[in-house]
Structures are given as C-alpha cells and as structure tokens.
C-alpha cells in the first residue's frame, strides 16, 4: 500500500497543474446555467483546449486518439481539474465518458472514424436516450420501438432525463427491436442524429428549478441501420461493455466537490456560532471521516484497476455510501442555514461579511436528494451489494406472469 506518487505521476500532475494555471484564465466567464447554447459554446471551447493540450480523452486508448493515461493518472487528472476549478464540461460528458468508450469498444472502424475525433475536438455534443417514463430503475423494460424498414430503423417512443438535449448533435439511443417483454434480449444501441425529423425536445424541469434535462419524443424517426452499434438485439451487452472502462474515477470530481462544500458548511457554522455546538461538530467531523473514507476507497479501486485492468467491486459500495453521505451533508447545510435556507440565492450577511453561500448549499441539498435516485436508486444498489458482493440469494421468481421476469434485483 503506497500513497506516495511515483515520479511519473508527479510529473503528470505538475505539468497538468501548470497548464491549467495558464489555460483557465484565458476562458471567458462561465455562462448562465440556464443558457444552453452559451454553455455548449463554452464547454466545447474547453474541450478543444483540452484537445490541443493533449488532455482530451485522457482515459481513451491512444489508438483511438486519447491520451491512454493510466488509472492513477486519470485520478490525478480529475483531482487537478477539480482543484483548479476547471469547467466540468457538461456538454461533453456523455460523449467523452459514455458514448465514446462504447464506440471504441463496439463501433465499426467507420463509426469510430466518424464520431470519435469530433467528440475529442469538441465539435460534436452527445446526449443520452436511455431512461423512459416507465423504465426507471428497471431499464430493461424500455419500450421505445425500432422497426426495420429497408436501410432504416423507424423509431417511436419517449425518453426522459436526457441532459442538454437541446444542444446535442448525436444521441446514444437504446431501442427495443425484439418482442415486447423481451427484456435485456431485445434491445439495440443506435446513434440518433438529433437533427433527424420527428424528434421533439421538451424541457423537463427538476424540483431544483433547473432545465438541465429534457424529455425526447420520437415519432417515426428514421435512423439508418448503419448507425447501429453492435448487433441487433445485442444493445444491452454493448451498454454494459462500456462499464468495463470505469476505473473507479467516475465520482472523483463529485467527491472533491463535496469535500469543498463541507469546508464551506464548516465556515458557515463558524460564522453563525453553530461550531460551538458539540453536536454540530460531531456531524461535521463524521461527514469529514466519511468523505475521506470514500477518497481512500477511490484510491483502492483505482489501484485495483491499475493492476487488473478491470473495474474493482468498490464502485457500488462507493455510490451507495457517497449518495447517503452527500444527502446528509445537504440536510446539515439547510439546518445550519436556518431561515436563510428559505431562499435559494446568496444573501447579504447581517454581520456585513461575505454573503451567505445559500445558492450552493441549497443546490447541494437538491443534489443530495437526486443522488439516492439517479443512476440506480439506493434500494437497487443495496440489492447489488447484497447479491454480488455478499452472495445473498436473489428474490425468487414471481409465480404470476410466467415471463421469467425477476424481482427487483440487480440485473
């Protein structure tokens, strides 16, 4: 067990840090969170800067145009970006973290040539069309239909929770090509060009008031068969293959953000006098221990990935613990804000000091509420931990229905 950086790792960090110190000041001020065209422009500009500096696709293999960095370097990359306050690049994340790796693993040579460079250079923005109104935790029940007609699939259905759909060029789309009820066995993975006729994008406002997600309505949208990645009805496996890219760094930025937020909460407690309260101290200290424990878990997972080339089992445990911790951090934030928490924007402090950080802390509270739901509810995660890590039996098949559907289990 070694937490000391190697010389190579240290050099990677130092070079990245100095590049960030030069690059970030050249960025314009970030656009308003609600202005997606401006955000697209800002995020793709940043992606281009990463590309020019050789940091685009840091985790992609070199023969796909990426940097081919080691898992530890990937960790360092995310740490340094968070540390420097670099843009997250919302408009790029589906392409760089999800669609890109899928294409690398499963796309044809032609598909890879067509899409990968555009992602790396920030020329094309991707969004994700996986979730559906009736298929949330149970993704395999998705119903968006694709019917083959000549060289096209004709696609009809609805997708939800599609981030930045308004400004996306391509959409990674899961459709049902098998019989209804064919579950995992009848799903196909398609590249949907977002300018195809028949796509309607409706904003999906969250409880936080944000417009970052949309609902997609697809009405006889024609997608060329050439846009299929992997075989017909093999889309579930194609989707799962991407997970094999995960090197335990998926939540590094989030986690470091939480650490920073905890510091802000403690600072708020100091200003309000709540830090004199031993109970509040214990809550803060407990959160600190948990977040640092999660950092240690990240390091463990990354180290395992570096050795084996496979994602370790720590990911599910991480997701479960992190979501719950972050939710408690959000609750404590609101508790400490007191009546200032009835606002959602920063407010002048009565002591004339810096404004109270209401916006970030309330936003963090909302974030906490979503974390135990998004990307697999905590309930589903507990099934996974119980069944895959502890080997506990799955729920027995249900007698009625007889379609081989399982209980709310991990797959």
């Amino acid at each position: 067990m070694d937490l000391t950086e190697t010389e190579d790792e240290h050099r990677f960090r130092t070079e990245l840090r100095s590049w960030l110190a030069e690059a970030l000041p050249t960025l314009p001020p970030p656009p308003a969170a609600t202005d997606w065209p401006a955000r697209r422009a800002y995020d793709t500009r940043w992606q281009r800067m990463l590309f020019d500096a050789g940091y685009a696709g840091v985790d992609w293999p070199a023969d796909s145009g990426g940097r081919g960095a080691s898992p530890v370097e990937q960790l360092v990359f995310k740490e340094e970006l968070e540390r420097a306050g670099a843009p997250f690049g919302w408009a790029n994340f589906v392409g760089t973290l999800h669609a890109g790796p899928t294409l690398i693993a499963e796309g044809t040579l032609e598909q890879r040539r067509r899409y990968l460079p555009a992602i790396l250079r920030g020329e094309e923005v991707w969004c994700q069309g996986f979730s559906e109104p009736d298929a949330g935790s149970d993704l395999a029940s998705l119903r968006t239909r694709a019917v083959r007609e000549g060289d096209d699939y004709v696609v009809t259905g609805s997708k939800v929770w599609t981030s930045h759909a308004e400004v996306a060029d391509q959409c990674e789309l899961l459709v049902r090509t098998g019989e209804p009820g064919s579950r995992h066995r009848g799903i196909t993975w398609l590249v949907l060009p977002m300018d195809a006729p028949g796509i309607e994008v409706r904003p999906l406002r969250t409880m936080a008031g944000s417009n970052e997600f949309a609902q997609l309505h697809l009405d006889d949208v024609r997608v060329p068969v050439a846009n299929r990645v992997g075989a017909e009805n093999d889309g579930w496996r194609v989707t799962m293959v991407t997970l094999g890219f995960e090197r335990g760094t998926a939540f590094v930025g989030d986690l470091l953000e939480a650490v920073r937020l905890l510091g802000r909460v403690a600072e708020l407690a100091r200003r309000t006098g709540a830090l004199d309260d031993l109970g509040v101290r214990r809550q803060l200290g407990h959160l600190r221990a948990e977040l640092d424990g999660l950092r240690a878990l990240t390091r463990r997972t990354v180290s395992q990935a570096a050795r084996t080339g496979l994602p370790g089992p720590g990911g599910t445990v991480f997701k479960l613990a992190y979501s719950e911790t972050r939710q408690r951090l959000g609750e404590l934030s609101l508790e400490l804000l007191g009546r200032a928490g009835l606002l959602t924007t920063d407010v002048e402090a009565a002591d004339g000091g810096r404004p109270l950080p209401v916006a970030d802390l309330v936003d963090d509270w909302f974030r906490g509420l979503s974390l135990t739901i998004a990307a697999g509810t905590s309930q589903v995660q507990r099934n996974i931990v119980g069944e895959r890590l502890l080997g506990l039996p799955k729920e027995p098949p249900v007698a009625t229905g007889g379609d081989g559907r399982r209980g709310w289990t991990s797959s």
Partner: protein
Amino acid sequence: MDFELTASQVDLADAIARVLVSEYPLEAVRSLEGAPAVVDRARWSNLAATGVFSLRLAEDAGGAELGLAEATLVFEELGRALVPGPLVATHLAAGLVDGAAEGSTVVGLVVVPPGGGGGVVPVVLEHLADVDVVAVLDDGGVSLVTPADVDATAAARPLDPLTPVWTARALPRGEPVAGPEVAARWRRDGAVLTAALQVGLARTATELAACYATERKQFGRAIGSFQAVKHLCADMEVRRTLAQVAVQAAGVTADQPGVGDPDVAAAEAKVLADDAAVGNGRACVQVHGGTGFTWESPVHLLLKRARVHANQFVTAAEAAAWLGATLPPP
C-alpha cells in the same frame, strides 16, 4: 379520558376538508407558484367564513369558542391541502388585529428568537406582498409594522415557490399591541399550529407515496410489493401517526388545565411533526424516484413547505435541546 375525536371534532375536520377540496384544489394552489403574492383574497375570505381564523375567539367576538385542539384539526387539513399564506399568523392575530378573524386583514409574522436573535442571518420575512400588516413577536410582546415601512429585498427564487420571502437587515420599530404573556402564548400556540400543518403535509406525503407505490410497476411488480419501498412507506406512516397524536395532545394539553405541561407538549409536537413532514417529504421523493424529482410532480412542494415550517416559531433542534435540558429527575 377519551382521547378519540368527538363527533363534532370529526365534523369540523370534515367540513374544512370539504371546503378545501373546492376552494383549494391542487391546480388552483399550483397556479400561483412563483408569484410574489400567493394569497387569493376571495378564497381567503371564504376560509375565514369557515372559522379558520376566528375558531378560538369568544362568541361575542364572532368566534366559535373552540380550543387549540380543534384548531389543530383544522390546520392539519390546511397543511394537507398545501394552502399557501400566513395562516398561523392570521389565526393568532384574530381578536388582536382588526379584520384578521374575518379574513379582511391578512397578517404576516416575524418571530424574533428568544434573547433577540442577531448573528449573521438577516431577518427573513414571508408573504410581505400578501399581508396588510406584519406582527413582530419578541420577548417583550407583539408589535405591528406596516409592510411598506419594511426595507426588504425580495428573494428571486424562494425555496418554496408558494412561500415568497424577503430579507431585511432590520425591522422598523412597530406599534406595541400586546405584552410578554401574549407573546409567550403565540410562541407556544404558533408552534403547535405549525406542527399541525406539518402533520397535514406528512399525511399527504404518505398518501401520495402509498398510491404511487401501488400503481407504479417495475420489474413486473408494483414497487410497493418490494420490501425496500414498502418499508420506506411504513416508516412514513409511523412518523405521521406519532406526530399527529402528539400535536392533538398538545392542543388538548393547552386547553385542559391539569393534564400536563402545555409548553412541553408544544415542543414535543414540533419536534415530531417537523421530523414527520421533512422525513416523509424526503421519503416521498425517494419512493417516486425520478418522477419525484421533477417540478411537474407535486411531491417537491410538500418537502419544500415542510422546510419552511421547520423554520417557523422554533426549530426541532431548538425544541429538542430545551426538552432535553429540562427533563425532570426520575
């Protein structure tokens, strides 16, 4: 001893519930989201006509001479229906502020913490654009302030879209209208009635969650048949039940001398009701999954309103600390 509701108490709750179904259907309530003023004066008058504000006044003052116990039943219904506006403040002010009982005067309230407040958090006022007068409650008593005299800044996006808020660095000196005894009673009764609103929210949250868990299917089954979801709902029901009886007991304890300490009962009611409303609001979001996280679903309104009430009169943390410090020796 008969701690079950009397027939007339059941009738009272039913009557107000019926009025609310027609006067405050969810669509009507939601149509005001984000507006700077959310009190519909016509509806407010109709509420007043059912006795929501005058309930506890003497008959010759136009009241029904009922107790705090009955008021908790009414306010539970108001909470259930998510009725917006300074309900508790106007109820407390009835009899002291002209027109409050009748619904012609809408009364806002600022509660100054015991000892005088101060610190870094500014004064946060609710419903400033809705109210005709602002009552200020501090250790010395109650005084009245004209809304226009308050130098306040409106919050761009209040946490609860149905509870518009303003901030102010200080409040103007008001006209004193009541002394410390009234102030102490307002604090206590206000905590109990706010707790009753919370019980109403907790109840709606439980109902919505149970209904969704019965209808929503995933993995070929209603999600409520999975223990993970069922048990979330069961815990909601437990919190709701305990809070409800505690709030009603606090009402009775204030009304009937000798059955207990009304201040203790009030503090306990607030602790349990805040837990129930916030806890059930959160659980309701979780049971609804992605749907519960949308603005379109009403679920978020329950949780946001619960957070507003959690910061009115006394917080659960303050009330619990006081209850812990004053535990009698065994």
